[in-house]
């Protein structure tokens, strides 16, 4: 089933990237933003910043990707066939040096899929891969389903059934078992398409040219270039090229080393985080990040982390926001990672030899630096490395178990063997002492450390709330507007809303309303917006709440669009979740609330149409889709969705008409063409 918006908090390389959930407002820009011309490329930086350039060039960012002839190829394009049940795919380096995947189907039909871009170089120690892109006729860059993993030295694919990764075997069908064949996932963040956002390259901006009816895929580079962090350099270069530049303080660029903790983290979280997309027009560095993305809304819509922040399925490093080093300390990414070389350093910026150097930790935790007093492991053993216990490499379970794809745990936890086991996480002790049972591990910890540090109170509340059905009690465990733990606050608030907030039938507890109102005045945009949504959806039948919301709405200032986007998208998320659970009246009410905030959000209209359809109200479903199409005609999926509703009511001519309309905007959409052909035979 088509819907107008795909999941927008798509993560890089995420196994699942094509389910309908949230929507975005506004229209896709029709041409590459002029601001894209403000980016000059890393070579321009090298002219003055040669040392930084050299460090970057050898870094994982500097080697993140590029044209096939400009990267270090680790995948085997050796002409050895990859045999599927219904096709043979042969990665081949041709005589002219070009890379192709030569596909031979059972019918004997043959065609080649050229490799136009390579991403990744197998750099990551916990499991590094290399992926390939093809320029599609519709102007997108499409991610190809054949990946290579370095450690196992194997080609692999992602399975449609559970989105895990698997080696290629003759039991697999290319056409029906793969998540991404024909290639659907695109580079950039275009609406309605499975995508890997804007992080596998620099300054990626995908726009739709309504005249030519094709996409423009713009990017500066498939490396992660200087301007990905530092922002556009044009003005900087102009200023620095003029005599007297030394007399101006504004050099067209900010010094990132002076940023405060959250600002500094924000630079890295542009990519190293799961994030909800708020707008469809392309984000470029220099834009206000919070206008385009939300870091905390994914906790409401997807639960990407365990209750204490560990990666549940597949994620990045924004769970650092669960760590004590962040919450009670000053830790940013660059306190350990040299941003240019990707090498390691201590909190004072002094270079360290490697990623397991304890001084990353002990330059702050000096009290733990005295021999083996704290670790209780031999000095030269892995057990005496801070990271072994506190940043263990955890397998991303969304990938499955065929390949090692583990990332060090940036929640920097204390090993809790039993608790970790309950979460389904391999605890740090287990990694070396897998032959010992949990009791043995717990006893060792107890002997060495006595009682271990309690959880943050809010996390403890979240854990307890899992077993508590009573909303009054749960309220106190989950709603903590005064806390200083945004991730846990979001998790608590989101959990409460999902459990207890329904249009017209929310828990009527004055304390809850008070806490929601406190959240609604929080300075954190995500928390504020989610609470506004909860009051709007659950309590706006009360006059005093309507007054409160009116006051808040007229007082959003420069954050108005950022908050309203979060507000509307979270209402859409809640509505869509209710629809999945068949609480359709609530779902429909929720989606209408979302449209009160963002009336032109065609994704929400699409979800509303879906809910109406599910409730049996095809008339409203069709009417809603017509409204959406009137709002944004050049959205092929709206037409395709409309066609499907017409199919359901057996109105074949109108279904054909809608498909034809949609194909005007997406002439290469394979599924639409197949359906159209079938309908025409009826």
């Amino acid at each position: 089933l088509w819907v107008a918006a795909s999941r927008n908090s798509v993560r890089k390389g995420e196994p699942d990237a094509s389910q309908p959930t949230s929507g975005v407002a506004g229209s896709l820009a029709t041409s590459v933003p002029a601001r894209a011309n403000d980016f000059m490329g890393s070579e321009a930086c090298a002219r003055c910043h040669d040392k930084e350039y050299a460090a970057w060039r050898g870094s994982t960012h500097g080697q993140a990707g590029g044209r096939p002839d400009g990267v270090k190829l680790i995948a085997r394009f050796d002409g050895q066939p990859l045999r599927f049940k219904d096709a043979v795919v042969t990665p081949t380096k041709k005589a002219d040096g070009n890379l192709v995947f030569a596909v031979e189907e059972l019918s004997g039909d043959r065609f080649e899929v050229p490799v136009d871009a390579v991403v990744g170089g197998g750099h990551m120690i916990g499991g590094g891969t290399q992926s390939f892109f093809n320029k599609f006729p519709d102007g997108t860059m499409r991610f190809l389903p054949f990946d290579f993993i370095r450690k196992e030295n194997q080609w692999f694919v992602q399975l449609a059934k559970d989105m895990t990764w698997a080696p290629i075997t003759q039991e697999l069908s290319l056409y029906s078992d793969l998540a991404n064949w024909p290639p659907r996932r695109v580079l950039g963040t275009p609406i309605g398409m499975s995508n890997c956002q804007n992080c596998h390259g620099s300054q990626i901006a995908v726009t739709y040219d309504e005249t030519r009816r094709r996409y423009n895929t713009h990017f500066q580079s498939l490396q992660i270039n200087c301007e990905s962090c530092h922002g556009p350099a044009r003005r900087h270069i102009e200023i620095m090229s003029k005599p007297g530049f030394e007399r101006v303080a504004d050099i067209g660029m900010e010094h990132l080393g002076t940023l405060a903790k959250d600002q500094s983290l924000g630079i890295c979280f542009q990519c190293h985080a799961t994030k909800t997309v708020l707008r469809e027009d392309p984000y470029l560095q220099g834009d206000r990040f919070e206008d385009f993305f939300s870091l905390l809304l994914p906790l409401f819509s997807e639960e990407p982390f365990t209750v204490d922040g560990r990666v549940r399925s597949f994620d990045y490093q924004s769970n650092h926001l669960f760590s004590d080093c962040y919450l009670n300390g000053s830790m940013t990414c660059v306190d350990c990672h040299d941003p240019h070389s990707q090498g390691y350093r201590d909190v004072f910026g002094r270079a360290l030899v490697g990623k397991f150097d304890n001084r990353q930790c002990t330059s702050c935790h000096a009290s733990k630096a005295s021999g083996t007093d704290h670790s209780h492991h031999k000095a030269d053993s892995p057990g005496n490395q801070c990271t072994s216990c506190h940043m263990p490499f955890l397998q991303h379970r969304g990938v499955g178990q065929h390949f090692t794809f583990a990332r060090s745990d940036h929640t920097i936890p204390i090993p809790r063997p039993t608790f970790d086991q309950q979460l389904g996480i391999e605890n740090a002790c287990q990694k070396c002492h897998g032959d010992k049972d949990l009791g043995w591990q717990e006893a060792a910890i107890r002997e060495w450390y006595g009682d271990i540090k309690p959880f943050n109170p809010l996390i403890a509340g979240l854990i307890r709330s899992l077993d508590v059905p009573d909303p009054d009690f749960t309220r106190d465990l989950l709603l903590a507007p005064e806390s200083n733990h945004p991730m846990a606050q979001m998790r608590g608030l989101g959990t409460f809303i999902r459990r207890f907030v329904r249009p017209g039938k929310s828990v009527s507890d004055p304390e809850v309303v008070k806490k929601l109102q406190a959240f609604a005045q929080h300075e954190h945009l995500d928390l504020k917006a989610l609470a506004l949504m909860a009051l709007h959806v659950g309590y706006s039948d009360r006059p005093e709440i309507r007054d409160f919301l009116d006051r808040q709405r007229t007082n959003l200032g420069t954050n108005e669009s950022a908050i309203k986007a979060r507000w509307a998208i979270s209402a859409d998320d809640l509505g869509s979740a209710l629809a999945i659970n068949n609480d359709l009246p609530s779902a429909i009410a929720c989606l209408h609330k979302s449209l009160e905030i963002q009336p032109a959000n065609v994704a929400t209209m699409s979800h509303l149409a879906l809910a109406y359809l599910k409730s049996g109200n095809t008339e409203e479903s069709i009417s809603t889709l017509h409204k959406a199409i009137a709002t944004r005609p050049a959205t092929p999926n709206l037409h395709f969705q409309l066609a499907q509703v017409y199919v359901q009511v057996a109105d074949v001519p109108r279904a054909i008409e809608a498909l034809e309309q949609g194909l005007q905007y997406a002439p290469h959409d394979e599924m639409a063409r197949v359906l159209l052909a079938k309908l025409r035979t009826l």
Partner: protein
Amino acid sequence: MFEKVRIGTAALLLSAPANYSAELTPSQQFVAEAACVNCHTTLPQKSTLRERTPDLSSAGLRYNAAWLFEFLQNPAKIRRHLGRARMPNFHLNEGEALALVEFLGTQKQTTGNWPELPTPIQQLPATAPRSASAAEFESVLARGHICLTCHTMGGKGGAIGVELSNVGFRLQRDWVRQYLVAPAMYGVPHTTMPAQFYVVTNEHFEPLVPDPADRIGIIAGHLFSLNVEKRRALEDHFNRARQSATNITADLGRALFVGLNCAACHRNALTPQATDAAPDLTQEASRVKRTWLERYLRKPVPIRPAGFQPGSGSRMPDFRLSDAEIGEVVAVLAFEPPKRDGQQGVISAFAQHKARTLLADKLSCLGCHRFGEKGGRIGPDLTTARDRLQPDYLLQMIQNPRGANPHAIMPRVPMTPQLLHLITDFLLRHDQSPSASSYLSFVDHPLGVDMADAPQDARYSYLRQCTPCHGSNGDGNGFNARYLPRKPTVHADNDYMSRRPDDTLFDGIYSGAGILSKSPYMPPWGETLSREEITAMVHHLRELCRCDGPAWSRDGKR
């Protein structure tokens, strides 16, 4: 004749105040005379000044408090036998001067053991005050008293004694009478001021001359009949100041007396001489710029507003040096022709902005140092470092403070070479105008921690290094706290501290509070103090809060 011989001996001694080695150069001679070594104790030019300045053990008997109050704020030349030494101006405010006066008022000791004063002298207060005319006064002097051989009076007299016409408002009448009976009772050797009226024989005062008490009464009566209006004016001013200042105590004055190192130049009954009241000048030429030093000696401005040792109140006073005298000091400190000028070249406006932001938001420097209007008042104002310090010294001081200056309390802050050079270049070349600087009032910042007898343990370390911000009792209210954007941790706060693990306290001390997301202005001490010293400091914090860290943080111990 007998009397004349004694007086002649005194005159001979007084005329040779600079009894120093003939091998000294004229410049060294000046530095020795001026007694710079009394505070800058590492200078080789030793001084005998302390033997000739007033002994303050009896200041409470001796001085008119109202005059002392005025004099301490505006010192002027009184004594003429000090060579080129002089009482400098310490820039005391009224409260500070008052505190010193209160303290000195308690100093009522005489020197040595003396018989009971002659009965006529004891009776004088009952019959006095009496006035005596100039004629009476002169007739007494004409009876063989050669006061004006040394002293001056109304433009007449000797060249080495104090002006006698000021006595009436400077001193106390009773003291003058007793002093004339036995000058040595107040620490003045007879070779300096001979006894002319009495001599001690068989543990009794015996008259040296006929009617000694009358003569003394006439001399005192005449001297105290002079400048009556001035005395009254001084007393009015003093009384007003005293009435308006209710928080001034002798104890405060004592602490300031110690802090200012008054004992360096004045004998007194109570306090030892400080050895760490001023910088070591032996390497001064490699530390500071000559142009700055000349300007500074001409008009000293506060460098460490709370004292050379934080909170001590010590300060470089104004000696009212002439250009020639400044030249002598500079010559002794061995300044060479200027080397490369640190202010040459430019630092870009952006680099300035960057450094300024790092100083304000990331580094610990402004916890102690001022820059512009921001920052603490413990160390020297960094805004003026470019004019004051030699570039190489500044760099070394940032890089390794106690290597560059063993007396510094400044800790070494780990940093990359790039950051070191950025901050050094910025401090040498920034374009910020210095703000007016003034000493912190000792009355408002009564730290007055007397560390002289403190054992060199964690408490001492805390008093020396932590107290300026955290307060001597850990109340977070040290004198520097008001200049910090965030209140320092209250180490005496049992509730808060009992939630902080020992390891966290250790880490904060070791790596600075910035790592704990607290104030970056609390510097890292890990490269200055040993691990054992930091552990001892954590124990001291536990004594201040009378608490332990959370049970879970103790690794099952205790």
